[in-house]
C-alpha cells in the first residue's frame, strides 16, 4: 500500500549550492538522499513530494556544508503483511514467479501459485498446472496476498517479499474471471 507521510530529516547542503533558493536546494538534496531508499519501519521511499518546513542551518567545525533539519511530505510504499496486491509477472523461474508490486518485486513460489502440481515449462518460460492446465507466464496480471516481508536497508535489491495465491479470490485475473462466470452460470 502506498502512503503519504510527513517526515523529518537532516540534510547536508554542499557550499556550492548555497547561492540558490534554500527550499529548492533542500528538496533536491532530500530527493537525492532518500528516493529509492528502503527503511525497515517506513517502507520504500518513492518520492519526496513537498518540503513543509525548514529549521536551522548549522555549520559544523571542519565542514563547509550547512546542515538543515527539514520537515517534508513523502510518498512511501509499505508492503504490509496480509495485504492484497495486484501486479504483473516480470520474470518466471523454475522455483516460482516474480511479481512487480511497484517499487519492489515479490516472489510467488511454485508451491503458492494454486492448489495443483505446478511444473516449469522451460521452452515457453511459464509455469503450468498439472491437473487444471492453468498457466502463468511473463506479463500476466495476478492478485496475491503478502505473506512474508524482509526488507534490507543496506541493499534494497536484496529485500524479499513473499506472496501467495492459494486462497479464494486470489490468482491470475483471468482465472478469477472464469470462476466468476462459472458461478454465475451455476446460479442460473
Amino acid at each position: 500500500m502506498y502512503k503519504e507521510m510527513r517526515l523529518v530529516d537532516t540534510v547536508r547542503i554542499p557550499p556550492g549550492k548555497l547561492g540558490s533558493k534554500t527550499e529548492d536546494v533542500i528538496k533536491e538534496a532530500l530527493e537525492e538522499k532518500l528516493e529509492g531508499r528502503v527503511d525497515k519501519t517506513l517502507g520504500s521511499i518513492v518520492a519526496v513530494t513537498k518540503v513543509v518546513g525548514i529549521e536551522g542551518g548549522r555549520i559544523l567545525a571542519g565542514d563547509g556544508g550547512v546542515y538543515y533539519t527539514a520537515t517534508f511530505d513523502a510518498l512511501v510504499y509499505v508492503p504490509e503483511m496480509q495485504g492484497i496486491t495486484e501486479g504483473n509477472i516480470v520474470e518466471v523461474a523454475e522455483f516460482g514467479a516474480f511479481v512487480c508490486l511497484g517499487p519492489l518485486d515479490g516472489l510467488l513460489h511454485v508451491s503458492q501459485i494454486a492448489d495443483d502440481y505446478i511444473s516449469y515449462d522451460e521452452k515457453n518460460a511459464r509455469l503450468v498446472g498439472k491437473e487444471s492446465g492453468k498457466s502463468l507466464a511473463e506479463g500476466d496480471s495476478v492478485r496475491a496476498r503478502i505473506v512474508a516481508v524482509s526488507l534490507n536497508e543496506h541493499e534494497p535489491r536484496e529485500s524479499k517479499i513473499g506472496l501467495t495465491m492459494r486462497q479464494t479470490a486470489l490468482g491470475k485475473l483471468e482465472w478469477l474471471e472464469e470462476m466468476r462466470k462459472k458461478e454465475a452460470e451455476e446460479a442460473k
Partner: protein
Amino acid sequence: MDKFDKKYTRFEKARIIGARGLQIAMGAPVLISTKSYDPIDIAMLEFEKGVIPITVKRMSK
C-alpha cells in the same frame, strides 16, 4: 566599555571567518566584488562589510 560593545568576540570572529572561508574555498558564491583569490581574505572582507549570512547562537548570557 566600548571595547566590549563589539558584536562578536574574537573567538566568534575567528569561527565565522573560518567557516565562511571554508565555504568559499569549497565553491560557495562570493557576496562581495573583490580581486582577491584567497578565500580567507574574501571571508575577512565580507566580515568587515557585515554581509556574511552567519549568526552566532549563544547558549547563555
